[in-house]
């Protein structure tokens, strides 16, 4: 069940009613049980059999967490950690990467003119949200191993932490220490909090249904033109720009619905976006885009791999490897690998040039680097959306070609209307961060909310699945 569905609204309304009538302070057992049941129903509505998978990984991690906590020796702790990681990464690898690996081997054999007939393609349906909940579950066991967390006293509580339906499918990737304590913290219903939750949900629905879904119609229709022969550069750049707005609105929209729903149910989830398209450096971009994933990768991958320690090329290699893996996390395809690689390379070059911290640089350098960063980010999105690497490279070739040919833009032009809210949001954030504009007050929020609600009712686009659902 998608967030944009009546089934979700029904489930959410039911759970919210539980918040009012069963758990006004949200720590009551019946209310938490209701949350757990709702979360399992939510996940089971996709492919019911995969509920077993969720139960299995959480059971392994819950058990491993306790074993690690009780084990006196480091060796045994390591053993249980490895067991937990093997279960999580094993499942993730099997469901997400098996066919990718088999297809790659088949292509390699064919390229070498060897017989590849015996290599199968497995009929596997990717369990929805597996990349998110395995990462979340893994962070729990790693934190216990590091001594930063105590294990959860009961399995249902741990299961609720992982499967809480507001963040289960596409994040934010919540750490155990960010959510677990909230299950025991009393919090009464407050008008302000409820209204903020509603505001976030309306914003999320607006971004998804009005902005992302309508942009998707244009991007899907005209995408292949960007890589068509002799297409002027303005077309692929425009399409890349529209896709960048689409993916932002899609994912930020999802996150806002998740945050708003969690707020109304009495929980606070971490923010996942902070106007990424005003980032002045690649480093900053990754502190503004999919923040919880960036954090996860930094703490559990980049730093353990060596981080910025080491001499010579090692820190750069670490950056590149980390970003390649981040790319692969998004999807089992070479396009995602290239997307991650481009970001890794850009981060490495930025560090080598000393541009990763631009605050002390002259305005001209900051402005120039800002433009460069945003152009590279746009170009990299091409691989995120491309059907295959070849299409991505054709796109890039066109982007570097003859820029003129505005007549091709005529049919795409209406899409800019749907991209404009993304631009306005970023413009506003740019001004607010510099103190040139105040944060919106209650009145302004009320007006914005009314306008967004009206647009949701009248300007919604064709319902598409959230882009990040596939990861």
């Amino acid at each position, binding site marked *: *069940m998608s967030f944009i*569905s*009546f*089934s979700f609204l029904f489930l959410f309304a039911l759970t919210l009613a539980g918040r009012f009538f069963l758990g006004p302070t949200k720590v009551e057992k019946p209310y938490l049980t209701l949350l757990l049941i709702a979360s399992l129903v939510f996940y089971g*509505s996709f492919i*019911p059999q995969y509920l077993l998978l969720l139960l299995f990984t959480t059971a392994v991690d819950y058990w491993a967490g306790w074993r690690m906590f009780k084990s006196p020796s480091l060796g045994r702790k390591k053993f249980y950690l490895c067991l937990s990681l093997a279960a999580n990464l094993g499942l993730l690898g099997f469901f997400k990467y098996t066919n990718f690996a088999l297809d790659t081997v088949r292509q390699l054999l064919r390229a070498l003119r060897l017989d590849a007939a015996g290599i199968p393609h497995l009929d596997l349906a990717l369990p929805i949200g597996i990349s998110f909940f395995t990462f979340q579950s893994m962070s729990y066991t790693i934190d216990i191993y590091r001594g930063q967390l105590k294990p959860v006293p009961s399995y249902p509580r741990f299961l609720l932490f992982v499967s809480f339906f507001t963040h289960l499918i596409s994040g934010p990737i919540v750490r155990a220490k960010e959510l677990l304590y909230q299950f025991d913290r009393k919090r009464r219903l407050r*008008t*302000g909090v409820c*209204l903020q939750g509603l505001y976030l949900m309306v914003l999320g629905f607006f971004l998804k249904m009005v902005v992302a879904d*309508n942009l998707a*119609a*244009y991007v899907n*229709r005209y995408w292949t033109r960007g890589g068509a022969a002799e297409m002027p550069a303005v077309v692929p750049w425009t399409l890349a720009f529209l896709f960048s707005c689409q993916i932002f609105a899609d994912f930020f929209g999802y996150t806002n619905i998740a945050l708003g729903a969690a707020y109304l149910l009495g929980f606070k989830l971490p923010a996942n976006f902070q106007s990424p398209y005003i980032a002045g450096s690649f480093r900053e971009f990754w502190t503004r885009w999919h923040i919880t994933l960036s954090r996860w990768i930094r703490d559990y991958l980049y730093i353990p791999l060596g981080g910025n320690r080491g001499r010579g090329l090692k820190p750069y290699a670490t950056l590149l490897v980390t970003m390649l893996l981040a790319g692969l996390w998004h999807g089992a395809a070479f396009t995602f690998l290239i997307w991650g690689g481009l970001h890794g390379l850009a981060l490495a070059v930025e560090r080598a040039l000393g541009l990763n911290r631009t605050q002390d640089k002259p305005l001209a350098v900051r402005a120039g680097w800002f433009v460069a960063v945003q152009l590279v980010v746009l170009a990299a999105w091409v691989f995120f959306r491309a059907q295959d690497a070849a299409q991505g490279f054709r796109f890039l070739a066109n982007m570097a070609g003859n820029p003129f040919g505005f007549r091709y833009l005529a*049919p795409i032009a*209406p899409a800019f209307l749907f991209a404009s809210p993304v631009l306005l949001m970023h413009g506003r954030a740019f001004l607010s961060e510099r103190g040139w504009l105040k944060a919106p007050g*209650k*009145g302004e*929020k*009320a*007006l914005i*909310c*009314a*306008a967004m*609600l*009206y647009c949701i*009712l*009248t*300007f919604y*686009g*064709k*319902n598409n699945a959230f882009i990040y659902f596939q990861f």
Partner: protein
Amino acid sequence: MRSFISNSRPPRRRGYGAAACLFAGAFLVLAAAGFFLSPALGPDHAWLGGAPEPGDCVVDEIDSDHFDVYDDLYYGLGRSMDNARKADVLLLGNSRTLFAFREDSVKAFCRQTGLRVFNLCFPANDGMVMAYEAILRNDLRPAFAVVNENQFFTLGRSPYGTDTAQEGRARARMRVWEHRLSWEARRRLHRLFPRFGFGDIYRVEPNVTYQSAEDGCLVYENFSAGRETYGIQGEKGASDLPEDELRLARKFKEALEERGTRLVLTDIPYDMESYVRARKLSNSLGALFLAPENLKPFHKAVKLARELKVPLVDPPLEGLRTLDGSHLTGESARKFADGFFARFKALEPVREWILKKPGKKPGRAAPED
């Protein structure tokens, strides 16, 4: 920070009343503006204004997907399958079958003969696999199965067919529930909050077809209005009947006969030249185009019927037009279907079957082709 020794009164904590009023006021102003402005913007403002009440119909939003129809027919979720079970004649094929056999002609035939007809086509170009599985799953045992042979005898499935077959009954039920609720909600919503359209992608209303649950026939569609129509050209390409297709057709025929059903073939006309032209046009207009690109124009129905030793009911094509190079217009569909039924009821087995029905007469036999 306020000093605690200040004499000024502490600021009164503001509630949310003013903001709530502002919200309601702004929303009402927008809604009123939209409501009163929309008629000025053109006749399209009334969202599906010309459409009938869906009543006992399955509404297929063909821009999004065909799941409502597919789930309904494949899993027998609504009343459709109860009616299909009672049918003497099943019409099978792709969307051309849907557009060719519309409700008026089918009802007239049923009134005349006392037979029951059900249009069990899977409109996204699905062939015998989906049709046969639907027949088996719902235990249909009609006396006759009329098959539009074009693209039918193949083991392929459309993406909608694949998804429908894989998803299972529970999910199908949920999806149908979602679709219907969403449709009803939007129909009511847009009476108060009209949609505005601009360009060829962001349109006021979606393209839909209404299929009756009573006989599966097309009751209403809204995308032919204002379209240029195309003439059918009588001359078709050279006939070619691949061995594989013949083998599958034989198997299908045998499988039907085991259920007591006789196969009858037909060939709903369209033509490739206008089809290609329409596709180009629809691409340039950004309009929806239903059929896949690999349709072949070969007129092999005659050969197939001869090989299978089954009747071919193939009414003349003169004067027929399609609305997109592929699907018959309403008027042409009536001509075609009336011609078809006149020939169909003249077939010996059909005449015998009609005579078995109490109080009905088969009527005068139509001249043989």
